[in-house]
């Protein structure tokens, strides 16, 4: 079916976009790359009368290091830009990897990182990497700003904390400490170009004595929203990494996952894969962290 008629609004500033959003409310949708929105409009699961395109807002397509050691990513930064960015590759390899396996080249060239997150799919490739890096979501509204940690951003399939009068202004990702390693793992039926059947991201920061000072584990596509496995992170923290320790953490991750059985995979398979991928992500994170430390 063709996309129904709509009015395209081209604000020149985010503020203007917010005013348009406020006046049209639920009759409007925000469009960045459009790779999710236009599909939904074609299927008529979403029928906005007004599409507020951010394409005409200058200077919001950025990936930049801020003084103070945070990477800022703007709302029009494309997935392909995330893949190609040297700072992302150096400091946030799990995000770099996840962005590189999101959908297809064509979609990565149009779709934005923030759009991928605002879509709030439980299987979004980029959600779990952003979670392990303690990403802050800066949300603006006409009367101010608020900052939400990314793990609180998701509410359920397709749902986030974003309210109608709000926009994501940017992501702020603190640069991890030096002796940090992180990794992204994904299993899907096709080797490439596929939606994640299950995905896991992990991060480990090591103390000088080799013990874990900080651990992060996040799971995608195995719960109504991407989740962090705090219980597993806790048992890692302060300990010297061993095979047994990682096995225990991976088992906890498996228990914390609450996947459903659907046409893509059974719940049992998904749970088993959470364990396998968590172990692999931790192994790879440890190897990277150790290399950086030495």
């Amino acid at each position, binding site marked *: 079916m063709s996309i129904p008629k709509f009015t395209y609004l081209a604000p020149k500033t985010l503020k203007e976009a917010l005013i348009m959003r406020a006046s049209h409310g639920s009759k409007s949708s925000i469009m960045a790359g459009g790779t999710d929105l236009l599909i939904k409009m074609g299927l008529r699961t979403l029928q906005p009368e007004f599409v507020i395109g951010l394409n005409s807002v200058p200077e919001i397509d950025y990936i930049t290091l801020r003084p103070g050691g945070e990477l800022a990513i703007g709302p029009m930064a494309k997935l392909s830009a995330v893949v190609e960015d040297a700072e992302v590759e150096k400091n946030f390899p799990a995000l770099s990897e996840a962005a590189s396996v999101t959908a297809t080249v064509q979609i990565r060239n149009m779709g934005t990182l923030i759009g991928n997150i605002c879509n709030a799919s439980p299987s979004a490739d980029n959600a779990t990497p952003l979670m392990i890096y303690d990403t802050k979501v800066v949300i603006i509204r006409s009367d101010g700003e608020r900052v939400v940690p990314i793990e609180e951003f998701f509410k359920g399939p397709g749902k986030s904390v974003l309210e109608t009068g709000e926009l994501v202004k940017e992501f702020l990702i603190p640069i991890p400490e030096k002796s940090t390693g992180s990794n992204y793992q994904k299993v899907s*039926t096709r080797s490439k170009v596929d939606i994640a059947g299950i995905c896991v991201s992990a991060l480990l920061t090591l103390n000088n004595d080799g013990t874990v000072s900080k651990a992060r584990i996040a799971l995608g596509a195995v719960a109504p929203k991407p989740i962090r496995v705090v219980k597993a992170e806790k048992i890692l923290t302060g300990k010297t990494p061993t095979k047994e320790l990682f096995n225990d953490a991976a088992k906890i991750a498996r228990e914390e996952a609450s996947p459903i059985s659907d046409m893509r995979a059974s719940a049992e398979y998904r749970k088993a894969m959470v364990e396998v991928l968590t172990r692999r992500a931790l192994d790879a994170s440890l190897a990277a962290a150790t290399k950086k430390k030495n």
Partner: protein
Amino acid sequence: MSAIKGKNNLIGASIPRIDSPAKVTGKALYAGDIILPGMLHGKILKSTKAHAKILNIDISRALALPGVKDVIVGKDTPCIKFGNWRLFPNTQDELPLAVDKVRYIGDEIAAVAAIDPDIAEEALSLIKVEYEELPAVFSIEDALAAGAPLIHDENKELKSNISLDRKIDVGDIESAFKTADYIREDTFVVHPHSHAYMEPCATLAETDSEGRVTIYTSTQTPYIVQCLLASTLGIPENHVRVMKPAVGGGFGGKMELRKWEFCAAFMSRRTGRPVRFVLSRQEELESGRRRHGMNLKSKVGFKKDGTLVAKDFEAYLNGGAYNSMGPTATFLCGNFGAMLYRYPIYHYRGYHVYTNLPPAGAMRGFGAPQAMFISESQMNMAAIDLGIDAIDLRIKNAMVTGDKIEGVTTISSAGFVESLEKVASETKWKEKKKNLPKNKGIGIGCYSFISGGVFNWFNTQYNFSACEVRAYDDGTAHLLTMSCDIGQGSDTVLRQILAADLGLAVNMIRLTAGDTAMTPKGDLGTWGSRVTLMNGNAILDASKKIKEQLAKMVSIKFNLNVIHDVAFGDGKVFAKANPKYGMTFGEAVTLWVKANRGEELIARGVYTPRDKGLTTPAYSFGAQVAEVDVDPDTGVVTVEKITTAHDCGTVINPLGVEGQLEGAIQMGIGYTLSEQFAMKNGKTLNTTFLDYKVPSAEDMPQIVSYKVDTYEKEGPFGAKEAGEGLAIPTAPAISDAVFQATGYRCKDLPITPEKILRSKGKI
């Protein structure tokens, strides 16, 4: 034998596809691209019930919607049943639109024509259908259970949901098994598979002031569509003109009359305006034709030394709600069960079973991928039990040139043993198999396929294949044929064959293909890997007639001694022994036209296989080795390398054969590892390519192929098929490799990571 190979440097030449520039630049016109003045857009309302009586259809609100120009239901049509098996009219079980009953989710009920597609879509939502639901059956077991609802209760000859069966009895099976030292019996389940052609079906129909219909349609078989469309409309065949524009793949899925073709033609006659239907990918995956899922049982006996003794094979085909091409698949499955090896005794029982699923139809291999998945898997399992290498066991029993299946077929050429030897040596099969690294596997699968069928189920009165060649005084020729290029490359190969024989450059041949009003009547189109052999032969028949006429002109002009032969090459016609006695092709045509007082030099060529048994005039053969890596923790299979050695007779166009092979491997990997319909109560859940997982370019392994040299005397320049057969060996080869890597033997396609892990007790 190789004397005519390489004729005029065109046979065996890798000529790039003639249609590719237009296709890659987007200039090629597909049916869905064509727009005619005043054109209406059609949409079809489909059943949401798997099995139900239709109590009432209210179209009043749809008709009242501004912009809607026509709405039809079954009762508005002549209600004439159709089906490809005209030889047995009782198998023709489909109506253009359902009248009393729907039999699957997707069964077509009504059609709308409106001034734009969105209005048509909206009108569909305004049609109200009242159903009385009936119990539905989806599996073969349920369809055959006592008390199962009869899906075609209108056919009083059917006592169950078995719509058709097929028996083959060669020899006494019981006593044969008594002489066997080793017998194995296996039960396999194979799943349906989507054609996933790039171009969803589309049709545009227009009607002239005398009521004659022209349709532009995405089809493989214009003649079949012409005949069945005329019969369902109740008008003479000659009042229907079917034109095939560019077609984006068919794979067997576009070889029948389809409902939208009828509706477009019928509504264009009613409204006087052109009507176009373009299906969506969702519609195609939801209720489009598919390869048959089957339940298979095979018992096979060997002597201790590996000699085959007998085979008893049984196939139940899940046909879905209508026969479609199922009867042919039922027959061919039995024929292919007897292929590849010398089974002295062979029995087959095939049953085509109606269920309330979308109908299965013809798909690349047409019964063979299923039959050979079980038989090739059994060869691999038997080899282990007998302690004989899997390739040695095959060579011991392989069919060779001259072999016969009594009363069924003769193998006129076979390069099977050579194919097996080639893959064994090139892959270092035995050493590799002995020294497999952990999680790596190597496996083998083989195939044989037909070069067009002999069995005349369509009951055509005309030759199986036909063409017309016109020769012109400007040194060019025009080839008219109903054989359709649907992406397999026949427009290139057929021109190549004619150019080689007439001694012209390929670009001196104009081609008109797939237009029933222009091309010779009767060619059955593109399916069953028939085009190169059958239409190639028809072309050589016509070409020979043209050449005879032109040879006369040279002979007269140069007063040639009768013992001289006349040759055709480089655009010239000349005495073979003394080329200076010659002239250009155009000059020869000019002389002929003058000698015949202005007549045009035209020749018809035909081909019909006669006295070639019951199956096909020629068989291809081949062997394929797959090498895989299996992740032991995730169960994910990565196909690393596929090595193929195959025998397709003389290769007319190596580039074309390479394309067929690569496409076949891609399709085979999908069939084996990733593609699967997710069904729930008759409803297809995965209706996008996001969830119906066709392998992408990045999933392709390294591909190596070798051509075994054979010459098929029944084929043009010695050629036989290279289209469908190659789609067969990949599934058994990968399955065998996965077994070598993991110990998991798949008897239930597809192979999924989950099945592998479950077999290891890991989930």
